[in-house]
Structure formats: structure tokens, C-alpha cells
């Protein structure tokens, strides 16, 4: 009897240990909602980083990493917080890759991540308001703030010699933040914003909004919205009524859906999304092709980098405790240290294990500034001959 007890206790212990070896990361994205069409590639990106770390076998003491998914609905703060609570308390994740949209990310940070002390690295939340939020050093993002994107947009327009634009933004934290930062940057550089008005997502008919925008006039219509939502409605309405022919697409609009539905009909339109120049993206695209997903998808590289940063920081700290490894995120992301390209995660883990330092470059040329957000490099796209083509980096 005693033996049996001992044996079962030992079995329970080893079972417990086997469990502890598995480190879980949460992937908290909008699998439903207005950005659902890009969340698939983002998840694939994050999972690719996790798979590469597992393959190398260098992570901590040979532990493996697995991921758990949670849905935010992108614009549904209560769903996002509930999903985050589940990830943290019942799945026991040690870090979260997410959230996806700005409003929901702020809510999760305040209501789930900070109270529970879990690190969040968002690949795609870009609202300027998140730069100043009090986050106990737990929040980072591999995407730049929209304050930077607003500046880039103003530069693109100025270089194209366009001085008058109308802006239609989706009525939430992301749209408002981007529209305001863009208007500030563009006005300062001498341009005119004839109208800066919001649109609600999920309506059947945007002819009233388009009528108002057309009346205000402008050479280009800036659509700071979502391609799976009101953004598409606004473009359709503007094309149907002949109000605008040329559009500017910020990051929420740039996707395969945009190319499929609008590339031909909005010839000469342009836009930008966060993406880096250099070897990183090229290498990442090859890896994506092998793994079977579209690595050029908006925010897929950022998602890969977010997962990689969490795991490298854990390795550098030698701990999976968020309150310990949170201080290492900035260290592994920035110089000094050996430059790490995507796919080199195994080597990076080995360097850190040997006590060296790394400077993670990754798929989106990560360089964290300020309170831990990407300095921001954007890929400029243009609709040419019915295709969406990259025309340069800024």
C-alpha cells in the first residue's frame, strides 16, 4: 500500500513537472470582427516563431512552448477582456501576443494584463493613446504608433504633390487616433483637410457620408477604416457616385481583400502599412511560403516578432515569470548585441544561454523606442494595373 502511494505520488509529481515544462503563450486577436481577414496570417506568424523555438530545443532548460488562442472581436472590449481573463487564469499563459485593435488592447491591458501582471506585446494596436498609458512596464508593441503613421501619410501626400484631402475614419480609438494625428501632421506641412468625419461600421448604406465628403471636396479621400467593414462601404459609395477616384489606404485597409475588390477600380490609389525594408522581410516571406501562409499579410511579421521577443526575453531573464522577463524585452530588441534575423531564433537562444547579448531585428526590423513601441518603418503601396504593388519604404 505504501509503495503504491509513493508510486502514485511520484507519478503525480512527474506529471506536474511535465506540465510545468510546457510554457504557454496566449494569442489574443480579433478572429471575428472587422479585421478577421488578417488575423489568420497573424496567428500563423506567431505560431511560426513558437515552432522554431521548439525545434531548436535551446529554450530555457529544454522546455517547449505552446500557444492558446483567444478572440477579441477587435471592437468588443468585454469579449476581449473575458478572453484575456480565460487565457491568464485558466490556461495560465506567461505572456500575451495581442490584442489586435487599439480600443480592445487598452481595455485588456487595464482590466486583465496589469492586475494579473502579464506581459502583452501587441503586433497591431497602433493608437497614439497607448504610448502614454501607465503600464507597469508590461506593455510593448512591435507596431509603431499612429502618430508616426500620420506623419508618414503627410509625407507621402506631399511627395505626390497633393494638397487637399478629405478624411473618413472609423469611429473608434484606432480611426480617431490616426485621423487626428494625420490631420495635425498634414496641416503643419501646409496641406488642407477639407473634412475629417467619422463613419460607423456595419451600415448598409454610406451614401449620406459620401455625399458630405464629396461636398467638402479634395483630390484624395483618406479612408482610415477597416476593409472588412465600413471602409469598403465608403469606397464603394464614393466610386458609385463619382465623388472620388483616388484613395489613400492606411494600414487597416491594406489586405488581400483590398487588392481583390478594389485594385482595379481604384487604379492609382496608394497607401502604406507597417513593414520593414531589408533582408528580414524577404527571409520571413520565404519562411511563410514554406509554412503555408501569406507572410506579406499586414501585421503577420509583427506577430512573429512579438512572439519571438517574449521568448527571447524569457531566455535572457532565465525565467518565465512576466515580472522578471519584462525588463529584458527592451534589451533583446535593441542594440548592443548580435543582430538576429527571422529564422535565427535557435542561434539567438544559444547566444543568450551562453550569456551573450542579442539585438533582435526580425521580420519587421524591430527597434523599440519610448515606452516600448516600434520606431516604425512603412511600406508604401500603389494600385498598378489591377495589382497592389509595393513602391518603396519610409
Amino acid at each position, binding site marked *: 500500500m505504501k509503495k503504491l502511494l509513493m508510486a502514485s505520488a511520484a507519478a503525480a509529481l512527474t506529471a506536474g513537472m511535465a506540465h510545468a515544462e510546457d510554457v504557454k503563450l496566449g494569442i489574443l486577436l480579433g478572429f471575428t470582427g472587422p479585421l478577421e481577414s488578417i488575423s489568420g496570417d497573424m496567428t500563423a506568424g506567431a505560431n511560426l516563431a513558437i515552432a522554431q523555438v521548439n525545434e531548436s530545443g535551446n529554450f530555457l532548460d529544454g522546455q517547449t512552448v505552446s500557444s492558446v488562442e483567444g478572440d477579441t472581436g477587435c471592437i468588443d472590449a468585454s469579449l476581449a477582456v473575458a478572453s484575456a481573463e480565460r487565457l491568464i487564469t485558466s490556461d495560465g499563459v506567461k505572456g500575451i501576443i495581442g490584442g489586435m485593435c487599439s480600443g480592445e488592447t487598452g481595455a485588456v491591458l487595464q482590466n486583465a494584463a496589469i492586475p494579473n501582471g502579464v506581459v502583452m506585446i501587441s503586433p497591431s494596436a497602433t493608437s497614439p493613446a497607448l504610448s502614454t498609458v501607465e503600464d507597469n512596464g508590461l506593455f510593448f508593441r512591435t507596431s509603431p504608433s499612429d502618430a508616426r503613421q500620420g506623419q508618414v501619410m503627410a509625407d507621402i501626400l506631399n511627395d505626390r504633390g497633393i494638397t487637399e484631402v478629405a478624411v473618413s475614419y472609423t469611429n473608434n480609438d484606432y480611426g480617431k487616433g490616426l485621423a487626428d494625428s494625420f490631420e495635425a501632421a498634414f496641416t503643419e506641412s501646409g496641406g488642407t483637410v477639407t473634412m475629417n468625419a467619422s463613419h460607423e461600421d456595419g*451600415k448598409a448604406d454610406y451614401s449620406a457620408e459620401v455625399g458630405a465628403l464629396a461636398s*467638402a471636396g479634395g483630390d484624395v479621400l483618406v479612408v482610415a477604416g477597416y476593409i472588412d467593414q465600413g471602409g469598403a462601404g465608403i469606397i464603394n459609395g464614393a466610386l*458609385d457616385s*463619382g465623388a472620388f477616384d483616388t484613395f489613400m489606404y492606411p494600414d487597416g485597409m491594406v489586405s488581400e481583400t483590398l487588392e481583390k475588390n478594389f485594385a482595379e477600380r481604384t487604379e492609382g490609389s496608394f497607401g502604406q502599412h507597417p513593414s520593414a525594408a531589408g533582408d528580414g522581410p524577404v527571409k520571413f516571406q520565404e519562411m511563410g511560403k514554406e509554412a503555408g501562409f501569406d507572410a506579406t499579410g499586414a501585421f503577420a511579421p509583427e506577430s512573429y516578432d512579438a512572439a519571438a521577443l517574449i521568448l527571447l526575453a524569457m531566455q535572457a531573464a532565465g525565467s518565465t515569470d512576466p515580472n522578471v522577463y519584462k525588463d529584458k524585452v527592451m534589451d533583446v530588441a535593441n542594440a548592443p548585441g548580435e543582430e538576429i534575423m527571422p529564422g535565427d531564433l535557435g542561434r539567438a537562444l544559444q547566444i543568450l544561454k551562453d550569456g551573450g547579448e542579442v539585438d533582435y531585428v526580425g521580420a519587421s526590423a524591430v527597434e523599440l523606442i519610448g515606452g516600448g513601441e516600434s520606431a516604425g518603418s512603412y511600406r508604401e503601396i500603389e494600385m498598378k494595373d489591377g495589382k497592389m504593388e509595393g513602391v518603396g519604404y519610409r
Partner: protein
Amino acid sequence: MDFLNAFVSLSNYVLIPGVAYGSQLALGALGVTLVYGILRFSNFAHGDTMAFGAMVTVLVTWWLQSLGVSLGPLPTALLALPVGILGTIVLLLVTDRAVYQFYREKKAKPVILVIVSMGVMFIMNGIVRFVIGPDDQRFLDGERFVVSARTFKEMTGLDEGLAIKSTQVITVITAVVVVALLFWFLNRTRAGKSMRAYSDNEDLALLSGVNPERVVMLTWIIVAALATTAGVLYGLDKSFKPFTYFQLLLPIFASAIVGGLGSPLGAIAGGFVIAFSEVTITYAWKKVLGYMMPESLAPDGLVQLLSTDYKFAVSFVILLIVLLFKPTGLFKGQSV
């Protein structure tokens, strides 16, 4: 001063969309008004009846498209419309047998029937979402424009473009045909006259030998046809999404009440009043005024009375004003 450009711009953004939207509202309001006049309750399920009819039409359209059937420049949905109407007739007659008949025999008060219709609304709501899902569905094919903005500009050499979508033309033509048929039916045929008699005075009509169950059945059949047509036209012109039909309930009721509940003519007038108020009050007049006024007087601001977000609030306000000052509506319907 440039009246031509001003007029074209106004037509493009206010007049043409307003006429199309007004026709859609008028068809919807006719259904509401018929139910109110003859069955004597406000049918809250009307918006979702429209959604159901449109859904059946969408499904049949897809099936026809997969078979390669098309009407050339016209949308295939017109071919599928009769099937949609049939489907809706079946749904409404079954609903009547299963739900409304019970309350009618008990001579339930109108307010009870209103609440019952809300229950029916939620069930239809669920059926539509269950079958086709809550998302946007595309079923429009054929020629998109009668005149596109670009060709209009090239043709006339004006600065302003004028786009007339084929769906807008189809909407208006269909609405005229349907309304003409309806009025012919109500005023010229025996069945239509018995319906009006039943609506005016139920007891007297019964004494004169009008069969009440037949009148009720006819009413539901006509309402099904009106609702499906309105739903399909709205879906073709804008987009098919179950939730937007639920939202349409407010402007439709506003139209019926403004025109005078129970008055078919009022429903049509009400539809256009609501449509044009929504469009004109939320329109930014800067461009039109800029063309109309001498340069020195041209406005700098947008000259927009209300932001477009408040579109539905306009229907609410008109509804309130009418109920306060003229509860029987413009065309002397029954007071609410």
C-alpha cells in the same frame, strides 16, 4: 453662379438617392399600413419579414447564378423575386395560423398583438440569421450603372458627375408598378373592395357577407409581396445584411405614421417625406451653395445641419412632431 453644376451635384447626392430610398420606404410602409388598417395592430415583425423575403430571393438568385441563368443587364434577383414572394407568403400564412389567429379569435387588444408581433420578429430574426448568417451578402449582378459619373462628365463637359445606378432605376420603376397594381386591386376588384369594407367597419362588412378569414389571408399575401419586394430592392440598391432590416423598422414606421396609419396613399407620401428629410438634413450643402452663390458669399464651412451619424434621429424627430401636432398623419389615417 452655376446652376447647372449645382443641380447636377444636388441630383447626384440628394435627389436620386432620396427618390430610390423613398420608394423603398414607401413599399415597406404600405405593408405596415395594410396590416394596421385591416388587422388592426402595428406589425413590428415587418422589418424581419422583409429580411426573410430578401433572404429567400438571395438564395434562389445564387442558385440561378450557379446554373448560369441571367437576365443580361438586369439583376438575376428580379427572376428570383416571385419565388421569394411565394416563400414569404408561406411564412406569413403559417405564422398567422400558428400565432395571430389564436389572438384574433380571442379578440385580443391591439397592444397584445403588438407584443406578439415582437415575439414573431425575434423568431424571424433568428431564422434569417440561422439560414444565411449575420454577414453582408452580395447578390447583385448585371449592369451596375445606367449612367456612370465618369461618362456623364465626358458627355456633358460639366465639372460635376451624375451617377444613376441601375438598381435605383429598377427600384423606382418596380415601386410605381407595384403601387399601381395595389391601388387597382383595392379600388377596382371585388376582393379589394371587401378588404376596404372590412377595414372601414368590421361588423358592417361581416353583415354584408364578407368572409373575414379570406380578407385576412389576402392581406397577408399582399403584405408578403410588398415586404419581399421592398426588401429585395433595398438589398440590391444597398446591401443585404439582416441587421439593417431591423434598423429599417424605425424609418418605415415613421413613414407610415407621418402619412397616416391605415392610409395607403399616406404611406407613400410618408416614405418620401422621411427619405428626403433624412438625406437633406444630413447633407453638407457647401458644394451646392458654392455653385449657386457669388464667389464672395460662398461658404467656408460645410453647411451641414446634422452629422450623418444622426440620420435615424431625423426620423424620430419627425415622428414625434407628427404625433404631437397631427396624430392622424398627413392623410387622415387612424390616430395611434
